[in-house]
């Protein structure tokens, strides 16, 4: 995970919100560059987080050969 404590889902949701802003009535040209930079940053973080995720595989110790 990257420096922030946000999950990938939270970052993805944030990115989606930013992307939607570009199509919304709130869009302001003056703010577009800042929001674009923020979207780029979020995309990089999501990529980094996804690539660093590892699965935690545990073998169940209990035996199932016979009724316990």
């Amino acid at each position, binding site marked *: 995970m990257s420096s922030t404590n946000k999950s990938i889902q939270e970052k993805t949701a944030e990115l989606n919100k930013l992307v939607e802003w570009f199509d919304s009535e709130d869009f302001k040209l003056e703010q577009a560059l800042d929001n674009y930079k923020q*979207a780029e940053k979020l995309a990089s973080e999501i990529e980094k987080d*996804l*690539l660093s995720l590892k699965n935690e595989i545990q073998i169940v110790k209990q035996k199932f050969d016979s009724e316990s």
Partner: protein
Amino acid sequence: MEKTQIKPIFSVSDFIAVVNQTLEYAYPTVEVEGEVASFKVNQGKYVFFDIKDAGGSIGCFMSVWQLRVPIEDGMKVIVSAVPKLTQWGKFSLTVKTIRPSGEGALKKSFELLKSKLETEGLFAPERKRRLPIVPQHVAVIASTQSAGYADFIKILNDRFGGLRVDVAHVQVQGTDAPDQIIRVINYFNQQESLPEVIVIIRGGGSADDLSAFNDEPLVRAIAGSRIPTLVGVGHEIDTSLSDLTADVSAATPSNAAQILVPDRMEIIRAVRAQVISLLPRVLQLIDGQRQSVKDMMINVIDAVERAADEQMRRLLSLRNVLTQLDPNVVLARGYALIRGNVKVGATIEIETNKVILEAEVKNVINK
């Protein structure tokens, strides 16, 4: 002197007991292959049938709960049984397990059970539950030594991470396999922290190898699992009753991993594409703004030009009026301008277009 040999004299019951002891010592369990005949179930509890071939026939007995696959007359089967002499002196096999033998019998048994379970609605689409898009906690039932399991884990790790994966090792073929798998299904269903999906996988094999997944109690355990199930057994062409009952069926263990989690590389590509798509959109918006400003400027210039034209028109109009009022213009039209006192005897000045005259007033007549 001749030695006399003492031969024991048994009671009938003792002799039967001794024969059974001898049989138990010699053949604790036997596997016998043959064709089923005179199959019947008594009182819904006891199963009787004969197993025969061209040279002989043996009576068989078993409990109905031990019957895990549909059996009917004419079907070739392998029974695992304990040979026994009954108290009535009849030799029989007490069957522990029975399984169809050979492709024809396996197929027949498969079709019979499939039809039965289908009638009960176990394969109905409305029973199917959706799997979570990105599960956090999954349970896997597999033989951890199998190639199918290795494929599954490799693809799972390649595609996504961050999952808790609890793996239960079981036999995935043979007569013990169904019960082991059922125990694991029950085990996971009783956990305090329930996995979101149970994945049951097994690589390819012969019809006999895969027949464990056509076991009726196992199929019912899959159907009864409160945790959604994903089953990937065999190759693409194999379909087991476990596949048909599962909430989601995968063609192979690898395919099960593909269904279970999204591909992180695809997500990354989609996220990148999402951000890249913003730039042309911003440029398009800037172009739009630019055009809008341009259009406004054109409108302003048009308005100014129209106002200037109007002013010019008014000016020309006034100039015409003023021109008409100019005395020289009036004189040019032949009129004369008279200055002085208009009374008899007075001298007045008369100005025409070309000359100025002095004249004396001779008479004044009022109009």
